[in-house]
């Protein structure tokens, strides 16, 4: 956590304590209930953002968890006489369980992202609302809580609710802050930018999404439980209205959905504005004015209030940034990678896509510390093979193993954890991460498993190694193609892999860049890392490879030393065609 963030967190803690003290003093009840509503929205919006803002899975179902919490408390307290505070635990648990169940099904299906996820979560809200409306949970008449005794935490009921709301809001913002700065947070942000790449870099995407969703829902459930006591008469129509799911999105977008404090700021702005014009003569006009203000804010601050403000502060602070202590790149280079490396073995791998057989029984092996070149015409299956080895696709048949560890069928993040790294032909860096953060992510989640603090230093070291040390704080869109390719390499290396899969790393580079890239690959090789590299540039293949394998239409047609393979008739025929005119 940077010093700046520490300062912000400290000032917020002070503010929270101050607000808490206020309750003890005893404000007029209206301020307590007005502030309670603001706290409630802070908790709802911030909890929503934990999954939807950080990981980008926009959920329109936050109302379902809120409602589940409301009805859990209402039922337990009013019907079964459970003390109110215990019902809050149950409310959070029920909502969390609901999310876990839903997530376990939905998150496994790759195509259910983006709008489909939003729709599914919205649908779940309607389904839950209908079930509650038609079963004895509510059945129609609503649940009446006036008879439920309010715990006397403070002198007045409004004060108690205020305190509960405050505690929840503070806890939620603290949780958001903690998550945002933790490995979980890094992983979620990576998922947001490019989920498949994140998985391949070692982020356990399914687990992280589930955790984020469950935490988010649990908080909403507790907020719902408290709210049930606030309104004291719970009906389906009010509870499952479109208000909660819609407003949490608006609040987070306004404040900045990616930032831990953004949704809270948005919640304060929007929730207060609900009261700004409740005067009877101005009600209609007031709403229009508030809406106009919101529009203006988001038009001029498109990333949200908090990120825009922070960017202004940071751009002033950037100039005075201290140099990051770097682990000696030479040491990094010469340090042995991991415990004795094992060969990478593919045995009889088959993969088809619909009617297209991309790989037909491909078998190969890469010895520890070897450079294996993989060549073949376009469409021969080279990238598919890399995708299968790294776990992006599962092979239909066959085995992939690293030494004695089988990699077949494992999720990509586990394969990454075993020491596999890859680069992409068209670089896929995480767009919202700086160069250093990109590399640090791999260091955190790859086989190296660094702590967040170490990872930063590691990352700087690898950037120096690839010549990008001075570009550490640049964003990918500010880098040119060559730099982005080297960023891919740095990222792949930071995971301390045993095997690196390079997918056409030289394509698109000019001759001098190619020379420096080849030098870099040699340097990597010198560390003892095995390399499987796909390349079209024959010169590079000949210079670098220890052995070469030729793929054509999914089959291995030649294997051996570079010179042998390049002179083989079959290979020449595949590339250039059969000679009809004998020279």
């Amino acid at each position, binding site marked *: 956590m940077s010093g700046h963030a520490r300062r912000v967190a400290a000032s917020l803690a002070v503010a929270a304590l101050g607000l808490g003290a206020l309750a003890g003093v005893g404000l007029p009840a209206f301020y307590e209930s007005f502030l309670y509503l603001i706290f409630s929205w802070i908790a709802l919006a911030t909890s929503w953002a934990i999954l939807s803002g950080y990981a980008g899975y926009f959920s329109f179902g936050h109302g379902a968890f809120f409602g589940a919490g409301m009805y859990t408390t209402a039922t337990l307290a*009013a019907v079964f006489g459970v003390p109110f505070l215990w019902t809050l635990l149950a409310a959070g648990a029920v909502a969390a369980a609901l999310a876990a169940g839903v997530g376990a099904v939905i998150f496994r299906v790759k195509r259910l992202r983006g709008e489909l996820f939003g729709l599914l979560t919205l649908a779940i809200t309607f389904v839950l609302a209908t079930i509650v409306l038609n079963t004895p949970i509510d*059945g129609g008449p*609503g649940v009446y809580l006036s008879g439920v005794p309010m715990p006397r935490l403070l002198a007045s009921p409004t004060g108690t609710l205020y305190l509960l709301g405050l505690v929840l809001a503070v806890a939620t913002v603290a949780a958001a802050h903690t998550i945002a700065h933790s490995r979980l947070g890094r992983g979620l942000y990576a998922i947001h930018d490019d989920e498949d790449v994140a998985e391949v870099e070692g982020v356990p995407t399914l687990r992280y999404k589930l955790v984020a969703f469950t935490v988010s829902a649990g908080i909403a459930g507790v907020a719902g439980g408290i709210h049930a006591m606030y309104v004291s008469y719970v009906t389906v129509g009010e509870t499952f209205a479109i208000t909660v799911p819609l407003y949490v999105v608006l609040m987070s977008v306004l404040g900045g959905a990616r930032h831990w404090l953004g949704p809270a700021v948005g919640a304060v702005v929007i929730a207060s504005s609900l009261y700004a014009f409740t005067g009877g003569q101005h009600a209609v006009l007031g709403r229009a004015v508030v*809406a106009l203000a919101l529009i203006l804010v988001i038009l001029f601050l498109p990333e949200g209030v908090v990120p825009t403000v922070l960017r202004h502060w940071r751009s002033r602070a950037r100039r005075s940034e201290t140099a990051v202590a770097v682990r000696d790149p030479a040491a990094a280079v010469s340090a042995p990678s991991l415990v004795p490396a094992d060969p990478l073995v593919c045995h009889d791998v088959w993969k088809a896509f619909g009617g297209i057989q991309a790989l037909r029984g491909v078998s190969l092996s890469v010895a520890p510390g070897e450079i294996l070149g993989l060549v073949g015409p376009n469409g021969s299956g080279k990238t598919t093979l890399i995708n299968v080895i790294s776990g992006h696709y599962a092979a239909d048949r066959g085995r992939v193993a690293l030494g004695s560890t089988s990699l077949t069928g494992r999720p990509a993040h586990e394969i990454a954890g075993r020491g596999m790294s890859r680069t992409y032909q068209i670089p896929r860096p995480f767009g919202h991460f700086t160069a250093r953060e990109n590399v640090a992510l791999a260091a955190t989640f790859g086989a190296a498993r660094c702590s967040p603090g170490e990872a930063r230093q590691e990352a700087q070291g690898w950037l120096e190694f690839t010549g990008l040390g001075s570009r550490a704080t640049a964003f990918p869109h500010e880098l040119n193609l060559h730099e982005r390719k080297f960023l891919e390499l740095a990222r792949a290396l930071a995971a301390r892999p045993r095997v690196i899969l390079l997918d056409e790393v030289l394509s698109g580079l000019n001759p001098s860049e190619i020379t420096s890239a080849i030098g870099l690959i040699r340097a990597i090789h010198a560390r003892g890392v095995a390399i499987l590299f796909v390349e079209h540039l024959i010169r590079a293949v000949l210079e670098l490879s220890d052995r070469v394998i030729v793929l054509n239409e999914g089959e291995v047609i030649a294997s051996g030393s570079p010179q042998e393979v390049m002179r083989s008739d079959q290979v020449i025929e595949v590339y250039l065609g059969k000679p009809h005119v004998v020279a």
Partner: protein
Amino acid sequence: MGGLGGARSPPSWLVPSATLLGQSVVSGLLAGGLYGLLALGLSLSWGLLRLVNLTHFALALLGAYLTYQLGHVLHVSPWLAAAAIVPAFFVLGVGLHAVFAYFRVAEFASLLVTFGLAVILESVIQWFWTADYRRYETAYSTASLRLGPLFVPTLELLACLTAAALAFATWAWLRWSYVGKALRASAEDPAIAAAFGVNHRAQAFLLSGVSAAYAGIAGVYIALIATLAPSQIWAWLGVVFAVVIIGGLANPIGALLAGFLIGVSESLTMALVTPAWAPLVSFSILIVILVLRPGRV
């Protein structure tokens, strides 16, 4: 608090008459047609312009109120009203997009902006027409065609046919016209499309205008079929969003079919069991389709 005796609907083993079943299918199809009509513009702008346009609903209701005003107060026939509303709304749509283009509004920021605009429109509507209910009665409000034992309400049928016609026309336009192809190309890869000479800006304005015009047309039918109150803007949100997404973004025929699917599943539920279960059935079907069917959008 469970009410006296609880809800006991007629036992479901009581087989409903074929007429009842047939009538509900008709009813569901027609309701679905209106959903599809509303979904059309939204689907286009979301799919092709990457803008989630909540203002669409407010525009539809504004169109409805204008139809009411022209018809009920100034005694202009709804078809003439439509002739005035459609071009006016096209211009409104173009203007709306000017704002988006100028500020380069991203997808989820557009949600906030269009929400704000929808609230402003709602306030404008309430300012002029008050919050009280308005109903545009016409001579043919309750007319229907007979198809054997079944009744097909005329106005709803017209709305449904218009929806189908517009869906097909839009599909054909997107598929075969230059503009349509250009729009689809831009949506898929703006940089490459631009390299091929696609003027995305102009196309986007055109599409935004068309979208808004569709909202206006939907509004004319809403005025004829439903009763108006300012808060009705939000009544259609959930179901139309579902229709848009099931149908697939920027898929006009898909929107129409999805509308039918939801309409019929709701109305069959209402015909066969306790009507209050209807949303459960339609949304459960939705969930099952999305989770199980492979290769969906």
